[in-house]
């Protein structure tokens, strides 16, 4: 009797499991945000999700699971079932985990649901700094080695990769001071504790508009409508063309092995959410570029980011592992 019950239950749960895949979603979905409340990843996810909930007809319960540059959330989602009920809501960080030795997994071990938006890196400087563009900064640093204090968000963070990009073209002797994120670093810039900071446009734009700091470089190949007077860095350092455009991004991911129909249902919902007027207006206002891509397009984008960044940090000497070890190709 017991055995019969057990088999029946097992069979039932199997059927139920299949039914779930077809009728997904039948229960609340968990969204795991890898950065803290109030940060840019958090804000992007919390502003797109209400649209997605409407389209999916289910609640997405979001929790912030911070730590280990997002590795704790990434690993957590990886331990869950590949059933589409646990989403990883993250930023670009996992793409560096392998070379930095932070985790054995990155986004290539997951399925991208949607890359929602990407940010443009810029270089900001304090108002009283004696340089106004990248060339003047380079000249000044060469004339005053060690004088310029550059803010950073830790090795492997966006600021460190931008600095490595510059280093790959021209040797610069700056003093690096790490902060807990670009918010605290931009505060330090206004207080005079640091002189320059590579930051994402969205984080700095309001301070720039108010005239509390100045933009001296745009780390992109094209000019940006929000910064009409700043020339792209490739005009100063043409060698960077092979690495750009490059920048931080926000995306939603599920564990590899999630059924294809669930992936496409989620992708449709998030991509549609990214295309709503609300979301687009929000992103434009902060200088983020809306993407809303998934499938192979997303994979190509992710791979290009991983390849550029991994090789930059490897060449700069702070990678723990060679990108070769993971089959990451050098950017062309």
């Amino acid at each position, binding site marked *: 009797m017991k055995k019969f019950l057990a088999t029946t239950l097992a069979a039932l749960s199997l059927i139920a499991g299949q039914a779930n895949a077809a009728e997904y979603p039948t229960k609340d979905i968990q969204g795991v945000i890898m950065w*803290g*409340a*109030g*940060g840019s990843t*958090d*804000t992007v996810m*919390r*502003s797109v*999700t*209400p649209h997605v909930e409407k389209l999916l007809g289910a609640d997405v319960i*979001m*929790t*912030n*699971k*911070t*730590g*280990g*540059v997002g*590795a*704790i959330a990434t*690993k957590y989602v990886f331990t869950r079932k590949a059933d589409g009920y646990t989403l990883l809501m993250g930023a670009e960080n996992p793409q560096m985990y392998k070379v*930095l030795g*932070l*985790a054995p997994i990155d986004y290539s071990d997951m399925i991208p649901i949607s890359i929602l938006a990407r940010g443009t890196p810029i270089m900001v400087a304090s108002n009283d700094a004696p340089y106004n563009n990248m060339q003047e900064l380079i000249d000044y640093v060469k004339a005053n080695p*060690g004088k310029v*204090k550059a803010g950073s968000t*830790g*090795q*492997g963070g966006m600021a460190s990769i931008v600095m490595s990009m510059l280093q790959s073209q021209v040797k610069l002797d700056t*003093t*690096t*001071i*790490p*902060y*807990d994120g670009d*918010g*605290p670093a931009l*505060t*330090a810039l*206004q*207080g*005079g*504790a640091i002189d320059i900071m590579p930051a994402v446009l969205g984080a700095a*734009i*309001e*301070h720039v*508009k*108010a005239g*509390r700091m100045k933009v001296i470089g745009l780390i992109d190949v094209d000019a940006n409508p929000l910064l009409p007077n700043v020339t792209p860095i490739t005009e100063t350092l043409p060698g960077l063309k092979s690495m750009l455009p490059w920048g931080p991004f926000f995306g939603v991911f599920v564990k590899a092995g999630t059924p294809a129909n669930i992936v496409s249902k989620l992708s449709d919902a998030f991509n549609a959410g990214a295309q709503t007027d609300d979301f687009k*207006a*929000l992103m434009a*206002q*902060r200088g983020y570029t809306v993407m809303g891509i998934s499938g192979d397009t997303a994979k190509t984008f992710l791979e290009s980011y991983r390849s550029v960044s991994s090789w930059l940090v490897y060449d700069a000497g702070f990678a723990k592992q060679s990108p070769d070890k993971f089959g990451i190709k050098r950017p062309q």
Partner: protein
Amino acid sequence: MEALSYFASSWIHPELLALTALGTFLGIYVGAIPGLSVTMAVSILISFTFSWDVNNALCLMVGIYMGGVYGGSRTAILLNIPGAPSAIATALDGYPMAQRGEAGQAIGLSTVMSVIGGFVGIIVLAVAAPTVSEFAIKFQPRDYLMLGLLGILLVGSLSGESLSKGIFAGALGILIGTVGLDPMTAEERFTFGVVELWNGINPVAVMIGMFGIAEALNQLHHLDKTAVKQKVDKIIPSWKDIKKYLPLSLQSSSIGVVVGSLPGTGGDIAALMAYDQAKRSTRNPEVPFGKGAREGLIAPEAANNAAVGGAYIPMLTLGIPGDAVTAVFIGALFIHGLNPGPMLLTEKPEMFWFTVGNLTLANIFVLIFGLTGIKLFTKIVEMPKGILIPLIFLLSIVGAYAINNSIADIWWMLGFGVLGYFMKLYGYQVGPVILGVILSRLIDENWRRAIMSERGEIDSLFVNLFASPLSVTLFCIICLVFISQTPIWTRWLKPRLIRS
């Protein structure tokens, strides 16, 4: 005139008024439950209030913030579990008061002092926001370092009968605080290859264990003792008392506003500093500090609520969060299509007075809700131990889990509970441990940033320190506080000064 109409808008619209009241009420309970933080509640509300009008959403969130910071004192007084790190100092004297049968008076006094502190914060925000925020962002890494060192000197106030045991406990706290990825280089420290340790040991888990569980275990020694009958008359402090303690609460509130307005420090450090300042400046407390001194309850409560107004100062004027909650507020404003930043007050000047008015309203609700139902709460302390102790365990476990939805935090919490119990048994205070945990990161990061800015040269650190008036002032304060705790001062200088 226009400012006044914005100020009053949340008072005269019934919907906004009701939402502020609801938020404050909820906030008191969110704040009272250890592990459930205001930051968490406000960020959940962001998606919940997504489709609402921005003012409605803000009213609810401001209420939760104001109520939540106050609510932390409830469980600190009744059960010795601070609802949040900013209520740690409240537990030091609030809980002994409750054990003496004065839980009602303690809650009444903490409510009134919280509200006074709240008003001081709001007034400074309204009158001097631009000046204070320009001052606050001028703090360099070396200044934060000195604030941290000033905080560490509090060990002297928290260590009970033996200073050396206090220093040991403080050092243990600092050691606990260093676990995790190095904040500067992301190098692993004391993690033994365990990923869950990367983020360090959560200070809230340490706090809940060392205060809540350790006390519950300690209570097991007194199972036969019946609980003290609570005095439930004179719950609302008399006018005479308020007048008597007003200078102290104003002093503590000013510490609260300034420390709260600094982007790198918040209500927890403000409350502890105010406690220390109160202990040092109170000549003859009726009851010694640590045994249920009213001054020891007033100072942190006024300071942590004053820090709310303080935290808003850089947020509204510069778009720089003064603490974790205001960081979430910035996210909320952004989602609602506003541009939180230094331009906010130029583009939306009404936001400023609306927030000031709304904070004032929420503060009034704190007074109303805080002073109702106190008699019912004091019954908690009178409960039989057989119910009370399991209740403390339940609350501590739920709280520890809620911090980060992690089972590991529950084990940490229980482990530190047992450690805290044995420490108490052998005359070690747990206060310095949690102080060390809180300050460890502040000191670690800023010491290294300070020395990195000088490219590793300690002499130029001192040269630059003496070139900055702010740093020199902080340095002198540290020296004075330090000397005032040494035998040179207590045996030799102080008696001479008093005689002359």
